[in-house]
């Protein structure tokens, strides 16, 4: 292949500020943006900070923004951008550490607060494929946090105090829709996880590298579960005569263990 050069404009800097810097990288067949960044590290800037692990879109470490869109560096092909300068910037919704690396620890802190799966009996479970198809979709998540990055509540409105973000909604859905689960997370969803902050604009679905339909399959069904309890007087009437299917969990995260 002839020596074709692409221009990579990479954000360099830290919390105190920074700017994009241009690097010239020879294009190879099938090259992804992460390959180009490794070339930059070897040839020009050994200290260029980029987080990556598997380079196979399995681990979700190399999240960044390429020409303004949240994407995985290892899954974005350079030949999608022929004739363009490729701008690579860190995720906008999280505090910057250095260059392309951001501090995503907030995600792990809120994850800890989600009431965990609690089965009625220990395994082995008798569950059928059709019953688990729905939750297996959420198990595809690689925790790249691109959905958190693109979610405008977290990105534009500093909503981290008020909303757990799409990733955590998928996690809650995964447990709450488990055929064997016994916990009722509706109050938690409404008051702690902040599901009403979502206005279903579906950007999380657009950026998900695993193609999880977070909005329609996780957030909206969970919103409907919240509506069952808080917005539906007829359902409330029915519930008075039925034993609760699930045990409610407290809405205040326990400080002892989280």
């Amino acid at each position, binding site marked *: 292949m002839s020596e074709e050069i692409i221009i990579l404009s990479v954000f360099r800097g*830290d919390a105190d500020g920074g700017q994009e810097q241009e690097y010239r990288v020879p294009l*190879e*067949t*099938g*090259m*992804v943006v992460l*390959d180009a960044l490794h070339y930059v*590290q*070897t040839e020009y800037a*050994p*200290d*260029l*900070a980029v*987080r990556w*692990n*598997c*380079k*196979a*879109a*399995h*681990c*979700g*470490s190399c999240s960044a923004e390429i020409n303004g869109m949240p994407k995985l560096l290892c*899954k974005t*092909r350079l030949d999608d951008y022929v004739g363009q300068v490729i701008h690579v910037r860190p995720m906008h919704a999280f505090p910057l*550490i*250095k*260059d392309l*690396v951001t*501090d*995503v*620890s907030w995600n*792990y802190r809120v*994850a*800890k607060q989600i009431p*965990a*799966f609690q*089965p009625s009996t*220990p*395994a*082995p*479970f*008798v*569950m*059928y*494929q059709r019953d*688990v198809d729905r*939750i*297996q979709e959420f*198990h*595809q*998540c*690689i*925790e790249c946090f691109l959905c958190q990055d693109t979610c405008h509540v977290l990105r534009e409105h500093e909503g981290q105090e008020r909303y757990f973000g799409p990733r955590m909604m998928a*996690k809650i859905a*995964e*447990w709450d829709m*488990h055929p064997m689960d016994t916990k009722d997370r509706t109050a938690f969803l409404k008051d702690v996880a902040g599901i009403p902050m979502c206005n279903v604009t579906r950007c999380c679905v657009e950026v998900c590298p695993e193609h999880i339909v977070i909005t329609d399959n996780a957030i909206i069904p969970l919103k409907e579960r919240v509506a069952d309890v808080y917005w539906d007087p007829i359902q409330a009437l029915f519930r008075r005569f039925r034993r609760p299917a699930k045990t409610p969990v407290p809405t205040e995260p326990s400080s002892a*263990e*989280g």
Partner: protein
Amino acid sequence: MPSYLADQVNVESIEQHKYDIIIVGAGGAGLRAAIAASEGEQQTVAVVTKSLLGKAHTVMAEGGVAASLANVDSDDSWDTHFYDTMKSGHFINDYRVAEVFAKEVPDRVLELETWGAVFDRTPAGKIMQRPFGAHSFRRLAHIGDRTGKELIRTLQYKAIHQAVDVYQEVTSTALLVDGQGQIAGVFGYYREDGRFVLFRAKAVVLATGGWGKAYKVTSNSWESTGDGAAMAFRVGAELMDMEMVQFHPTGMVWPPGVRGLLVTEGVRGEGGLLYNSQHERFMLRYDPVLQELSSRDVVARSIYKENQAGRGTPHGGAWLDISYKPAEYVKAKLPGMYEQFRTLADVDITREPFEVAPTTHYTMGGLRVQADTCATNVPGLFAAGEVACGLHGANRLGGNSLGDILVFGRRAGMGAREYAAQAEWKQIDPATLEREAARVLAPLTREEGEQPYRLQVELQETMTTYAGMVRSQESLQTGLARLQELEERAARMAVKGGTRAYNPGWHTVFDVQSMLLLGMVIIRGALARQESRGAHWRLDFPEELPEVGAVNFVQRLSGDQIVIEPTPVPKMPAELARLFEHDRAPGVRRRAERNGEGRADR
């Protein structure tokens, strides 16, 4: 020395934490150990990982976790799993490790289900199990082709809901021992800003994974650099079977950027067939019985031999074809593979065959441990998962590594808990800390020197070329000489113009140091084993030799010298040895007896 370096060599100023048990590594084994260690909550437990939580190499495991649940093949049981494991390991495995493993792994899988893992289901609503290379029965519990992710995610959320502290993106550079050589703690630094951190601990569990990244063509993640094994070796721990490096037969070949990326054995498990350039199913020649589902060493060698005979594909591999199955089935059972080839190689695996070639996959060797507690020979040091050894012998069965991390992660956690309960806090010599701090900072202080990335590439190329799938006295000697040359250059590694803040060039220095050391140990082991056995293939000794097969090669550091000792393979007690009297696995025999002899083949 620049001022930003000087301030922290002062030992008193180093951030300190005190935990009864420190677990290094947050892959499946580390997290399972953390869960076990923190049960009962009498002891404080922390996990130290150089990546983010949930990103470890475990996520790359695809095909499934092998456990004799007997959900689809009712004749399966622990003894057949044990038989398959020992047989594929060519009998240099530690039988006791394999026995504990085969007996416990079904419980560990069910436990995951209790914690929220959702495996694919059988029509009867049980955990589905798929066939895999050299397993006598359909045995691998799976969720599509993303089983490793399911494991790590389940363990990750279980662990964070327990009393486990997690230190993310902390590189451990050294294990600390007291004057008697007993474990006293772990030293490292935060990748974020490079500040040092010292963990004092009564017991340390190493769950740092393998060192497949020492090779150029590899399916391994960035972090599989063998830091744990190297750190332990430096404080006197024994490494065993280091010559045993598994080459997975099916890695991606094209385009260059993804060379080595894993193509799950699940493709063959679901019916994928291998062809050479003449459209011949060559596996029928090499292994008429198991065919495509022969053990990994056999399939990898067969692909190599086809290429040597001029029947390889354009980029030096073989064709793997699953396109004859319905597209919807392929997408449901192998969604990751479909996506991987579509986005990275522009290939639709539901419509066309694709190229595969062997890739470095797993390191069977590692720290020598006791089967029941996972204790190493260093008091207070435990090891589990890929960093340990004994289970897989000369060749690992697909799906056994995920079982390994569950069974022995738990046992290491329990072993550490028991040990820490009666152990004292050990003294750490401040001079050791000072030396270690200075060593870690040295690459930043050098004005001129070797570039760590380039050394890493040279190291990887050396290992792939001279200590790869095909070995000989000559190639290994050349490789060793090159590594020694690299070692000299590595002493002068420098990271120019960088600070301690998230500096990948600096981080790479320690990866290179670990892999160089382990590369030497691999080659020494490979030179010592003058036979071909399992994954270890010597052109100059093409046969399995019973007298060589009777020993494991154990290496340790004596002063500055690496010494290598042939150690007899532990002998199976009679009740286990009996399982091997016949040439067929116990479960297969049981089934044959029930159905009447002669219809035993599946």
